[in-house]
């Protein structure tokens, strides 16, 4: 009997360390997009608090913590990352499984911000982009979701099919930053 074997998006590509910075694949658990129905924003947020202990995130913010996070993804859209969405949420939001749709990586190290500054047109200075801040933006030519998850750590999401380009671009930036010492 055949069995389906799972492969992660960055299978065979990561981890990677250059200089002080490490790039590794993140196992985010289940990922679901939540889009509240009209007038259901509050109800959805309440249901999320009850079931998952976190509110629906405000724009450009992430709620929760590692293992169970809700990341703002656009107007009236957030990604619930970690737990499977509680059944009660379906009354208030369109829920779409995105667990396999994204390559999710973690970029960590002293120069992580400098590495991202090679690719991302965002003001990532820590005073402006603090832990728990998130943004939909570009990473070189790819649309991406970028969240600061630690003092020197970022979670980066791009389309699954672009995992190789993500690693290619980040590696080049990491080498350039590391070579400057």
């Amino acid at each position, binding site marked *: *009997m*055949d*069995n*389906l*074997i*799972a*492969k*992660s*998006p960055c299978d065979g590509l990561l981890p990677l360390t*250059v200089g002080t910075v490490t790039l590794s694949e993140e196992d985010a658990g289940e990922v679901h*997009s939540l*889009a509240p*129905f*009209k007038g259901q924003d509050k109800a959805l947020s309440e249901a999320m608090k009850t079931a998952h202990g976190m509110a629906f995130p405000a724009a450009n913010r992430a709620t929760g913590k590692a293992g169970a996070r809700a990341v703002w993804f656009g107007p*009236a*859209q957030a990604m619930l990352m970690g737990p499977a969405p509680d059944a009660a949420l379906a009354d208030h939001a*369109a829920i*779409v*499984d*995105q*667990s*396999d*749709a*994204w390559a999710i990586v973690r970029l960590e190290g002293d120069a992580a911000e400098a590495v991202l*500054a*090679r690719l*991302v*047109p*965002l*003001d*990532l*200075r820590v005073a*402006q982009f603090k832990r728990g801040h998130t943004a939909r933006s570009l990473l*070189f*030519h*790819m649309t991406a979701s970028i969240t600061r998850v630690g003092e020197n750590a970022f979670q980066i999401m791009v*389309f*699954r*099919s*672009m*995992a*190789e*380009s993500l690693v*290619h*671009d980040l590696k*080049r*930036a990491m*080498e*350039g930053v*590391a*070579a*400057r*010492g």
Partner: protein
Amino acid sequence: MRVAGKGLIDRTETVPFVFDGVSYNGFRGDTLASALLANDVRLMGRSFKYHRPRGVLTAGSEEPNALVTVGEGGAQEPNMRATMQEIYPGLAARSQNRWPSLGFDLMGINDLGAPFLGAGFYYKTFMWPKAFWEKVYEPIIRRAAGLGGLSGQDNTDKYESAYAFCDLLVIGAGPAGLMAALVAARAGADVILADENARMGGRLLAETYEVDGKPGHVWADEVLAELRGMDNVRLMTRTTVAGAYDQGTYAALERVLHHTDRRPNGAPLETYWRIVAKRSVLAAGALERPVAFRDNDRPGIMTAGAVRTYLNRWGVSPGRNVTIFGNTDDIHRTARDLLEAGVHVAAVIDSRHDAPLSDDYQVLRGAQVCGSAGRKGLESITVRRASGEEKIHTDCLAMTGGWNPSVHLTCHMNGRPTWQRDIAAFVPRPDAVPGMETAGACNGSFSTDACLREGIAAAEAALDDLGMKAPKTTVPQAEDTPYEIAQLWAVPGKGRAWLDFQNDVTVKDVKQAATENFRSVEHMKRYTTQGMATDQGKNSNVAALAVLADATGRGISETGTTTFRPPYSPMAIAALGAGAEGAGFKPQRFTTSHKAAVARNAPMVEAGLWYRPSYFPQAGETTWRQSCDREVNMVRQAVGICDVSPLGKIDIQGPDAGAFLDFVYTNMFSTLKVGRARYGLMLREDGFVMDDGTTARLGETHYVMTTTTAGAGDVMKHLEFVHQGLRPDLDVSFTSVTEQWAQFAVAGPKSRELLNDLLDMQLDDESWPFMACGPVSVLGVAGRLFRISFSGEHAYEIAVPARYGASLYDILTKRAEVLGGGLYGMEALGVLRIEKGFITHSEIHGRTTAYDIGMGRMVSQKKDCIGKTMSQREGLEEPGRERLVGLKPIGESKQLLAGAHLYKEEAEPVRTNDQGYLTSVGYSPTLETMLGLGFLADGPDRYGEVVKMVDHLRGVTTLCEVVNPVFFDPDGGRVRG
């Protein structure tokens, strides 16, 4: 000549380097120009047009003469300014635009032809005989083009681009910039201080000024030390801020490694920065201008400021017997500096009649230099006074015509500078760049004291805008010499007086342009090429303008200026385009089956950033057609597997999902039953077809839409626009699920047999009829099944979460092979769909309507939809429109070619007889003929007619029968069976 006791170089470290094959020594901190001058090398280049021997004119990035080539092979850098190129052990530079050598340049003969090569000469000749332009004249002109050359090899250096953000960007680290940065930094603002030079300090490094009782460079170093210690400050040396753009965005180029031959792994040679600054201070200083007089271009003649820079910063005197000429007190400052360094000053020629006199050197008041002599370097000058002309022997003439504030960046957003008569220069218009303050010499304030004061004021203004409090700042003590200038642009007289040194534009050329009515400054520039060389007129524009103003009897401000445009200094294409080499140009998208396809030697083709297999060659197959035919037959007779994941998939949910789809599709979707799919056609608002695909209803309020691969992004954008912009009242949301699912076509008569082995249930026509869809369990994994077909066969598309894609693909392949089937690629897919008359973007190429592709009746008359009204315009439904047909070869030639055009059988194949064209062709192994889809005027009314396909490019003419585009199984029995 190196001068003892002067300069800011490290004399303990000798640096060997090579210029034109000759080895020299310099010191650490030297530029190529300073080191060559120290070695008494004056000849460094040749001019563009006349190949005149040239030496350095300046000591900065504006240098027009001393351009050299550095490096070899893929690392070869043409047109490097010797004045900016720092020397390092092993540096090898060579001169340009000469043959066979810099000293003996055969092209120097051009100089003798100068009377015939004046302004605009080429517009007036080379016209006869006509055929000679491309064959004779232009090749000769082209050979003379350019200064340096590219290696022709791929660039071997690495480059990077980066973003930076700050509260205040300070451009230029002279006294004004340092002061502005210091004040803002002390207030707590995030400051970036950028300077083009290797060392910050600006003119403080080049003059003998004191600030706060210390040598200027010492004061600068102290300020820099304080700035370096603050973590809200970023100092960027060797960084040219090259352009000002909207909303506080600046382009800058950092020369990271040009000063060394070290190339650590991955290290960028240059970094291109986009700096986003809430406020900026331009403290870019000023550039000195030469004076035009006969033969003012000999090596050894340079600006007075450059002479002081070489002396004070690099401890080099460009001559042993120096003369000085000009119209401001700078010439006296130059004389004092030289004398103090022990260099002989032969004479100071001051054009001002009231010039100060000196006990230490001879001053010729009210005098002008009117000529020079010396074959490859200056030997003497001729000075004209009221009493007559006099020859003075000299090996270096320091000249000044005054200073031009560096207003360039203030012009980048269309700001025009204004003429300030008392300093005879253009100064920036306030607010020319929103958010930018100007300070110091670039503002026309030349004394050190004024620079320091304006630096403070500019920082205070910026801090005020930023809502920050400026600290109390005392102005350091510094000189405040008034700037007194008598206008002096061109010394009258015979001969050629150079304005634009590199492009060999003379005073005569400008006057001739005026005579020929090129009186507008833009006309003069374009006619003479004045200001179009690598310095973009930084050294010459204002003087040329003054000459033009004089020649046309107008004032300078009335004459106007040309515009400075980005970049301030030239920037390498490799830096601005960093990261785009090879795979970096655009993201690559790989399906989960990619590796398996590559392992089976499938050539991969690019489709909407994705890679898809073209065909799967098997042992014994020598052409792609053999593989393609086999794969087509396999699908028609057994079962084929094809990864269709790159097709766009959009999850659509909400109470109004059906109503929304009715509005974006021409046909109805609100009436579709749950568990069923339907083909949908989508128009643009102008009535032409935008995209097509199958949309399935998974639940009462839940659909999943399929788009074409290339159209996926545009469709998503369109849906969001229609929803947010036109129908925000509808409760519906969209999520791309293209990446979530790995989806495979399982097509062919044995497809059900194959799937029944994998699923947890048995498929039959009753539970899974054509166009049924729904959830399934695939080997225990929750998936989706759609009974849809792009081949006309009994077929399915099966989807599983992408993590299982590679695995499912392997299993499907294996099982298909057991059933006599296997993988098929894009070639076979193309043939299968052509046999069925199914369209792709080859047919819906943006110029066709639903009517044109035979789907006019799919535009529902029961409802409005996007594009419906405009699709019904009179001109889009009238006779003569080219409409979709099938074409079959019937004559001797059996070849069809996509891109060939259609004509009536007897018509001459010229444009006026054109009737249409072929969009898609393929060889059908099923029908054993080539088949074509194409558009033909009134096509569907002409079935059975014979038309002529002509491909001029490939020399093919084929007679074709016009047929229904559905060539195979027209009643669709196979897809249902």
